[in-house]
């Protein structure tokens, strides 16, 4: 379905040359246009605007900047690229932070070439790319927000909540079911499942932005005094 469309512009950020090249090669072989590669966070942030990549494949484990910070800075650029986190297992907290600050996908490094290509295509198309691990993290985050003490004043944003259906879908993703299997089981269309997953991310990212703005405003008010 992507054959008629122009090649996806991808930037690959990984401090490990072997990985960087392998991923770039795989993407190029599959018809993507690798517009830039970077070996550290600063380089990535510097090159991204000129490269105008649609998708940044980002390793969170970078030598100079935390991957989360790189993600945040990429999100601040105009136009902001879509970020697909390609990271090793065992960096769960970082992954959650990256997703909250705008990354729309997560894939473990052990994923196959096909999974990577599929993930890049879906990320470019604006879909959220979830692994079971990410679904578990997102579920946990919503629960944490729900039970966390609400902000002292009523002006604070209410904790975001998942609908029952969204929770159901996320739980099935976390248990390793594919979107198609989920669609079959819940008698939904594939697209609907995709939308539910997407919405959960959207809520999380919106909440994160609101929190950041609130924090900035509080700081600003404090400074005026």
């Amino acid at each position: 379905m992507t054959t008629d469309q122009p090649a996806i512009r991808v930037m690959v950020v990984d401090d490990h040359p072997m990985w960087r090249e392998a991923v770039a090669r795989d993407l190029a072989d599959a018809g993507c246009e690798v517009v830039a590669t970077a070996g550290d966070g600063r380089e990535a942030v510097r090159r991204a605007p000129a490269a105008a990549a649609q998708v940044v494949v980002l390793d969170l484990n970078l030598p100079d900047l935390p991957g989360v910070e790189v993600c945040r800075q990429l999100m601040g650029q105009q136009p902001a690229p879509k970020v697909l986190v390609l990271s090793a297992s065992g960096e769960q907290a970082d992954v959650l932070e990256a997703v909250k600050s705008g990354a729309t996908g997560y894939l473990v490094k052990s994923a196959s070439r096909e999974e990577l290509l599929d993930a890049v295509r879906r990320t470019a198309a604006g879909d959220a790319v979830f692994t079971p691990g990410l679904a578990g993290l997102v579920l946990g985050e919503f629960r944490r927000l729900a039970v966390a003490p609400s902000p002292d004043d009523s002006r604070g944003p209410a904790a975001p909540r998942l609908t029952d259906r969204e929770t159901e879908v996320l739980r099935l993703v976390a248990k390793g079911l594919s979107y198609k299997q989920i669609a079959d089981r819940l008698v939904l269309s594939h697209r609907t499942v995709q939308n539910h997953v997407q919405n959960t991310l959207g809520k999380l990212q919106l909440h994160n932005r609101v929190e950041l703005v609130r924090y900035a405003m509080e700081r600003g008010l404090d400074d005026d005094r």
Partner: protein
Amino acid sequence: MGSGRPGDGFSVEQPLWRAFSAFRLLTALYAVGRYAGDSKYYDHRLAAWVFMGVLTLWTVATMRVFASPERCGWNWLSADLGLIVVGNLLTRAFDSPANLAVAVTLPTIRAAASVLGFALRGGWRPATLAAVVVGLANVAERGRLDWTNAHNIVLLLVAGVAIGYVVELARAGERALATALEIQAATRERERLARDIHDGVLQVLAMVQRRGAEVGGEAGELGALAGEQEIALRTLIGEGLAPNPSYQAPRRPLRKPGAEPDPGAEQDLRALIGPLAGSRVTVSAPGTPVLLPDRTATELSAAVSAAVDNVRRHAGPRAQAWILVEDEPGEVVVSVRDDGPGFAATRLGEAEREGRLGVSQSIRGRLRDLGGSAEISSAPGQGTEIELRVPRQRRS
């Protein structure tokens, strides 16, 4: 303090030698002053003055030499000691034989400075030797051993031995400190290296897994092994927790050997279940600790282990399993799902009776003991899922 090289800024050596050099000068001045007061008792005053002049000149001229451990060798110390001995002996030659009022030798306590030099240089043994030499010269000057010079000799010996001993201790301490600093630096360097190397190794392992899976066949097996090792290593480095690379369910979940069981203690369930992850097992959990009382966490993770074991036994060694840990306000839910063939719901009781789900009995038993429940569901072609629920006690 971690920035200093061994011996940097901690040295007792330099201050000691500087103090020693100053002590030499002060004692020499004292000797001159003392002689100025006592000169009336001497017969050969001019000759004695000449000696005092030589002693003072020597002391002042060699100040720099005696102020540093590198320059002040045994020859300098011996020359200094020789001059003191000569001074002691000259005292007898210069003073009036009838007059015993001169209780002190020409160099007087300047002799002690010479002995201290030996103490600084070589510790208490050379100091003792030097003190004995000075003492003998004293006795020779007096012509006999009496209370006065015995007293002086003992004082000299005590000072030499004590200072020499303290200097040896200080040096040993300094060496120990230097060694400790070296070890510390080496450890830090090793840790840094380990991080770098490990990260490289992990990347290569992950790459082998990825490529192996693409090539398939035997390479795929190899890749799967590499993947398991990668997860194992990463867990080891990241949390210091030994993971379970062979995908063998631990019957006795991790517990510190010999640790006192504390009924109030809580454990992070993720830490107990995490090691089950492997190339065929995916563990999904919240990003924050899932705390449960010690015993509950242990029992629950043992049940999860049994469930994962069950997957391998009944769904085949190639089956994938997914573990989902959920931390809800009222309960903790752990689901274990596999992608095996599964079975129709109507056959569940039958399968259980056949012992096909034998392990499920023990799982159910464990969960019942915890006040929770275990639910098994399956559909043909959709794998089997077991959901373990443990109620959470009200936190006070």
